[in-house]
């Protein structure tokens, strides 16, 4: 590991990209993405369709995927692949939705699209049985391992209160665009898991978070890096026994999708769909108070689409 680090430093490129990101701090370094004011909507919510058509409606309302990804860039699509469960159980992001996003990016002429998650269950079985590995490969994306500490590089989080440093997957550091594709689920300890909680899958040592005020750490981490786009899969929603689910009886067909560049707004809207007030989810509230984003949905310009 150390030798690899050393050689990599020697060769330069990857680490330089990481350093740039660090200096950039909060916010995106996606080069050339236009200012947010180009889109009139802070949040797009779609209901009543299948995941892929709902995404198409939402991204069109957001001004098209071309706003976020450019030709020649490298893109990271981060679904939730945390559990070795079948797609019907709603434990992992819808595989067709993930593959569709990968495909749309590739059609815009991006260099590479990577997909990974630091899973909870055995990683290779999560990748396979969630259906995501096959779907993404079929779409032309690259499914990448995140199973050992070797893939994770230390970063510092200057604006974090409890989380001051974390080890982050090297692709988060090297990719130009970061698209976060969580699935909305009940969570036994954080009430819900949506976009912010999904970022626990790009870091290595989650035990530290659990030991040091979980909600605060979740909010702290987002001060380091906000995804360029959040696409919340709220089609099959585990409403109890989450985040893994025991059987399909735990799933409610909410048939919704949310999209926003504001990770707090996306989580606030998804929490409402789930049936909980955003202010009752500590990490959403903390992130709002830390100025990461806005959880007050009535202050936002929301596009609502029924299908």
């Amino acid at each position: 590991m150390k030798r690899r680090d050393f050689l990599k430093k020697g060769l330069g490129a990857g680490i330089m990209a990481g350093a740039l990101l660090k200096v950039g701090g909060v916010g995106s370094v996606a080069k050339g993405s236009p200012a947010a004011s180009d889109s009139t909507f802070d949040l797009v919510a779609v209901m009543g369709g299948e995941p892929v058509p709902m995404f198409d409606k939402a991204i069109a309302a957001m001004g098209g995927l071309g706003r976020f990804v450019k030709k020649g860039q490298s893109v990271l699509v981060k679904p939730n692949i945390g559990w070795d469960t079948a797609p019907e159980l709603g434990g992992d992001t819808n595989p067709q939705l993930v593959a569709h996003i990968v495909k749309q990016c590739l059609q815009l002429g991006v260099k590479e699209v990577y997909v990974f998650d630091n899973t909870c269950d055995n990683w290779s079985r999560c990748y396979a049985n969630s259906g995501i590995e096959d779907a993404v490969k079929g779409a032309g994306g690259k499914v990448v391992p995140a199973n050992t500490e070797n893939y994770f590089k230390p970063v510092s989080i200057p604006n974090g209160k409890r989380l001051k440093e974390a080890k982050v997957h090297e692709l988060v550091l090297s990719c130009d665009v970061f698209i976060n594709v969580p699935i909305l689920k009940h969570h036994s300890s954080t009430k819900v898991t949506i976009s912010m909680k999904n970022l626990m899958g790009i870091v290595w040592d989650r035990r530290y978070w659990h030991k040091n005020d979980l909600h605060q750490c979740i909010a702290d981490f987002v001060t380091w890096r906000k995804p360029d786009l959040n696409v919340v899969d709220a089609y099959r929603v585990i409403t109890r026994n989450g985040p893994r689910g025991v059987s399909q009886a735990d799933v409610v067909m909410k048939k919704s999708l949310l999209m926003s560049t504001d990770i707090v707004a996306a989580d606030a809207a998804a929490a409402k769909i789930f049936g909980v007030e955003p202010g009752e989810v500590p990490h959403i509230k903390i992130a709002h108070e830390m100025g990461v984003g806005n959880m007050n949905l009535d202050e936002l310009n929301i596009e609502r689409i029924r299908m």
Partner: protein
Amino acid sequence: MLKRLSLRNLRRIFAVAYLALFTFVFIDFSETFSSGFINGLLYLQFIPSLLKFLKVGGLIATGFIVVLLLTFLFGRAYCSFLCPLGILQDIMARIRAKRPRYKYLKSWNIVRYAILAIVVIITLMGSLFLLYMLDPYSIAGRIFSDFVRPAYYGVNNFFVMILGFFNSYALHHIDFKPIPWQGMAITGALLAVIGFMAWKWGRLYCNTICPVGTFLSLISRYSLFRLKIDENSCISCNRCVRDCKAGCINLKDKSIDFSRCVACYNCMDSCREGSISYQWAFGRKGSDVAEETDPTRRSFVTTFTGMLIGLAALGRADKLFAQRRIRNRGANQGAQVSAAGSKPNRRSAPITPPGSYNHDDYRNTCTACHLCVTACPSHVLQPSFNELGIFSIMQPHMDFRSGFCNYECTRCGEICPTGAIRLLDLETKKRTQIGKVVFHRGNCIVRVDRTECGACSEHCPTKAVQMVPWQGLLIPEVNPEICIGCGACEHACPTEPYKAIYVNGNPVHQVAKMHESIGDRPEESELDDFPF
């Protein structure tokens, strides 16, 4: 080397190919081969097949009968064609500039039959310890799984690093979970001793210590076809003796001690007169070799066996089932000093994998070949030190420090060749309770630090661990009845050195109750418009 397709050359080609496959199966981390292939590959391994036959039965466990028949027909072909430790010895003996030159060795019949008798008696008395210490299949498995596997991981990780320079993720990095050094020391010592014996005396281990070799020799003594020297054409040139790694050719009376012959067929190829061939055993009188013993050699063997037992007993049995864990983490400025996890606790019993039914059965059927240790995708099956008892050293147990049992996985039961871990269908496995959860509130982050955690409940596949309201927070509540003991909660629990939640093994596995609300259909949403 392979000038013609003689029996010897056939044997060489077969043995090298077999050992290559065998080795790969014991070091592979990618589930390259199906469990059916692995079962086929190990079908003829004598001890595992015998144990499986006794414990489980069925067609799949008839391999040892095939070996017995083969031995009765042609002698100990198992030892040269199939025994992984035998083939390994042949290879180790060749690591030198010149070809080895062997001499006729007197047989140590009293020693080897005494060892076999002791092994059989101890096994019948209910301890597999001596058998799995000496069984060549299991020793070879441990050599590959414990020593070759980490080296293979290292080579893999080196290529991962190289590919990393080209931004390729074609291979993936893998961590080797450290295994108890006491077990490695035993395997290492065995490897050194057996390697030295092979280098110096050929197949001496097989003809003196190995219980399988000795047992088969009882049959090969009466084989229908045996290698014999034609006294008329033999010119006593000594070439065959020089090539005989079993040291069983006595030129004085031109006889071959076929009970010690490992059927390598070196002698047939080395004989320029064509005097050695398989012959119907009862056509002519075969001469038996005088059975003598040599006190110095005998003492070597007893010392060696004593050393094995001594090594095994080296460790002390304190902190027997404590699940203490200390890890050094990089200091994170936001980290707080917490008392969570400071209260000692220990499990009442160790945990064995689903399909092992009960601990006694498991201890008496597992030969610690470590195939499951290699194959377990979650790396939760790890060689034990004294968790299962010191005379079960190296038999794998469920080590929740290194992983937890993947809910949807039955790999260990699919591949276990001895029947120690029997194959359960997935639905049965998901209900098999190998242990029960215990919540130690005094160590819990939520209780001690008053912050949310819930890592245990998050990971629980049956929701035997639920988070319930407690002083404005959520704290774990356990329901051992629906717990299956997979260890996900214990593995995920972040407290150190003691966990706030852990699993007590069930000495006899039980059936877990089902979660009360199970269904195979999702609910329709009552939401007909956006709630914002």
